[in-house]
């Protein structure tokens, strides 16, 4: 754990408590349950910790609760029971009006890219910067940098509908990272892509992870996991949860 601490962590007046809770743990689930209405628990008694800068796969069959787990991390939904800490915030106790500010620190990429087809690529990327009220010049610079990082230079003015599936996915990644989030979560980002496109997308994620962005990817592509996974959180059909180094 100590290896992941930033150089200045020990100098913070909070001492050990700060180091343990505010630096070491980026995401922490404690006895988390999630159900919808009075239905069965989608997630039951989930416990894990994720340190800053980890690259993690969330695996499991369809309907096992991978997306739900990511939604809890992204603050898109509250847990039914238990505590969820993300980036120093306890989500289950967080008032609704504070959640948008948490979401700015978590880049979310969903399986359906949710790109806006009434505007071009660069305008799609500008939306998160408009939300935080960034000055237009700065916003344009950052948006261009983001589009370059995902390898879409020269396609700024294209409408997403004119892009391939892989390019649309990369555009969604650019939109997710343009606000410089501490955490990046992606739900089946390669599900509808061929192997080459999928690998290029995974390379983009790995590049962001290498500069310190904690990355979680939900996938059931075993080949990709074998290539990239350093840790895997697995949920099976019956809701059993396991946490393993490498591929689960």
């Amino acid at each position, binding site marked *: 754990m100590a290896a992941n601490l930033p150089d200045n962590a020990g100098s913070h007046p909070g001492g050990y408590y700060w180091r343990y809770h505010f630096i070491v743990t980026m995401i922490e689930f404690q006895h988390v349950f999630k159900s919808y209405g009075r239905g069965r628990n989608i997630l039951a008694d989930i416990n894990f910790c994720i340190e800053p800068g980890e690259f993690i796969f969330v695996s499991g069959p369809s309907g096992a609760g991978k997306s739900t787990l990511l939604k809890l991390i992204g603050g*898109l939904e509250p847990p039914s029971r238990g505590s969820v800490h993300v980036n120093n915030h306890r989500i289950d106790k967080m008032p609704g*009006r504070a959640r*948008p*500010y*948490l*979401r*700015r620190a978590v880049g*979310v990429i*969903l399986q359906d890219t*949710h*790109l*806006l087809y*009434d505007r071009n690529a660069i305008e799609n990327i500008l*939306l*998160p910067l*408009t*939300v*935080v*009220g*960034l*000055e*237009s010049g700065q916003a344009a610079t950052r948006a261009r940098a983001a589009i370059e990082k995902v390898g879409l230079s020269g396609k700024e003015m294209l409408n997403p509908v004119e892009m391939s599936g892989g390019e649309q996915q990369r555009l969604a990644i650019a*939109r*997710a990272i343009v*606000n410089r989030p501490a955490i990046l979560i992606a739900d089946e980002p390669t599900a509808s892509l061929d192997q080459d496109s999928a690998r290029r997308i995974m390379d983009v994620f790995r590049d962001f992870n290498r500069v310190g962005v904690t990355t979680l990817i939900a996938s059931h592509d075993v080949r990709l996991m074998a290539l990239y996974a350093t840790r895997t959180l697995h949920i099976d059909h019956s809701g059993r949860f396991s946490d393993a180094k490498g591929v689960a």
Partner: protein
Amino acid sequence: MRRWLRQHRYAAVAAVRRLLAHPFSSMANLLVIALTLAIPIIAASILVSAQPVVRQISVSPEITLFLTPAAAPDTAKAIADRVRGAHQPEIRSVRVVPRAQALAQLKADPTWADALAALPGNPLPDAVVVTLENGPGLAKLADTLAHQWKQWDHVDRVQLDSAWVQRLEAILRFLRIGLGLLALGVALVVLATVFNTVRMQALMQREEIGVARLVGATESFVRRPFLYLGALTGIVASLLAIVISAIALYPLNASLARLAQSYGTRVTLHLPDGLSLALATAVVAILAALSARWSVTRNTRF
């Protein structure tokens, strides 16, 4: 502060863009609201134009006692004194109009001058004009006094002049209440139309709203463009309503002028003053913005 201003600028631009994105649909909505708003504006125009005309005429009842042509010249003064003495508290003023003065006044009117010139003498009687104090039961008191004075010697006829003005005042009061109710109805139409417009817009922008929330937009950020959309709709519709009303007053004025001419007077309908119109526009804009907020809150729950 700059960040806040930037977000407001974004909201205003987004509202205009959304309004222009579907020009025909937006125009249809604006026309519905504008035509609805034009009704109370025209009604208000009629009221504000009628009020000065009514004000020119004494609302307090005037009772005119016409004396018999054979009455002696000082009879009118004696009757005026008797009226003053007998009913002091109810009377505001009493004045004597001698027949010569009445004739002179009538001759000053060119429409009467020729007719009077053809007559051999002065056909007009002496008159006593009594103005009553305003107060409760005025109409009944005026009737009683008119009836009582008609029995006096040398009094030929008693004319109660202002009963119709009282009725006109009552009609104007009725119209004012009617206008209030009409304004209430129009406010409800504006609320409902803007609510529905914003609901449709929110449904069309569902994807954008979802993405904005996904990337950390606050509820204020999501609602703001719709608030601007509502306010903008209210302002544009109000301005359109003022133009429609101004245009509608032209034919109304033309036909009213012919009617007024037949009564030998001039009445022109005009819009309420600029301040009132600006105030009405502001109220409509606020109402529309509130309706938009209500609609977007109800229809875009996260």
